C-alpha cells in the first residue's frame, strides 16, 4: 500500500466517505502537494494539519485519534 492509501485508511476510520476530500484539502493547502505524492516524511506534517482541521470541524477527541493513527504509520515498515 502507498502512503496515500495508508493515510486514507486511517482517516476513513473516523471520517468515513469524507476522508478523501479532507486529505486532499489538507495536502494541497498545507503540504502543497497531491495526496499521491505523499512520502513517509510528510506524515508528521499531515498529522499536525489533520489534527488542526478535525479539531475545528468535529472535536479534539476525534482529532487525537486521527493524529495517533497517522503517526503510527511512521513505525510501519
Amino acid at each position, binding site marked *: 500500500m502507498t502512503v496515500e492509501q495508508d493515510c486514507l485508511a486511517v482517516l476513513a476510520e473516523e471520517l468515513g466517505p469524507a476522508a478523501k476530500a479532507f486529505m486532499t484539502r489538507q495536502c494541497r493547502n498545507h503540504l502543497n502537494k497531491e495526496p499521491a505524492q505523499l512520502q513517509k516524511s510528510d506524515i508528521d506534517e499531515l498529522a499536525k494539519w489533520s489534527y488542526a482541521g478535525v479539531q475545528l470541524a468535529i*472535536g479534539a477527541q476525534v482529532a487525537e485519534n486521527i493524529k495517533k493513527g497517522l503517526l503510527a504509520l511512521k513505525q510501519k515498515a
Partner: protein
Amino acid sequence: MKIRRKLLLSYLLIVALFVAAGATITYNTMKMAELQNTARHQLEINNNAYAYQQGLDQIQFGTLMYASDNTTEGERIIVASADTMAPAETFLLDALKNNSALITEFNDVVSLDKNQINGAISNVYSLYMGNESSAQKYLDIWGQLTTLMSAVTQADIKLAHVRSVTLANVEQANADAQSYANISLIIAIAFLALITVVAAVLAVVMGKRITEPLKKLANIAHKVSLGDLNQRYYLKQNIDIKTGDEIDELVDAFRRMVNAFRMTESLANEAEEPK
C-alpha cells in the same frame, strides 16, 4: 460478546437448570422404583410366611380331626396343608438367606415342623392305629396333641415375628418412597420457580442490554436526521454504549457517518466562503 452468543448462553443456562431438575427427579424416581421392588419382595415373604402359618394351623386341625375318628377328612387336610407349605418353605429359605436373623427364626420353625410337629403327627397315627386299651390310647393321643399344639404355637409366634419384620420393612420402604416423592415434588416446584425467575431476569436484562443502546442510538439518529450534528450526542453515546457486541459496531459506524457529515459540511462551508 456477540448478541447471538449472549442469547445462546442464556438459553443454555435455562436448559442446564431443566436438565438438573430432570436428573434429580429421575434419580428419585429410580429410587422409588427400587423401594417399590423391595416392598413387593417383602410382601411376598409375608404372604409365604402366612401360607406356612396357615398350613401349620391346618395340620393341627387335621390331626385333631384324625384323632376324633374323622380319619379321612383329617388325612385330606394334612396332605393339603403339606402341599401348601412345601412351596412356601422353598421360597422362604431362598428369600431369607441374606437376612441372618430371620433365616435363623425360620430355620427354627422348619425344625419344629420336621421334628416335633411331624413326630407328634406320626405318633398320633401310630397310637390311633395301635391296639392299646381305649382310655390309655386317648390319653396318649392327647399327650401327643398337646405336644403338637405347643410346637405349632411356638412356630406361629416365630412366623408372626417374621411377618411383623417384613411388614415393618414394607412400611419403611413405603415411607422412604413417599419421602422421595415429596423431595421430587419440592425439587420440581423449586426448579420451576428458579427457572421462571432466571428466565424472567435474563429476559429483562438481555432485553434491556439490547434495546437500551438501540433506543439511545435511535434518539441520536433522530436528532442527526433533523440536522443536529452536534458532537456531544454521539460522543456521550460512545461512552455510554459499550456492549461489546454488534451494537458497538453499529455505534462506531454511526459515529463515523456523523463525522463524515460534519466534515463534508465543514468542507462545503469552506468552499462557499469568499477567498
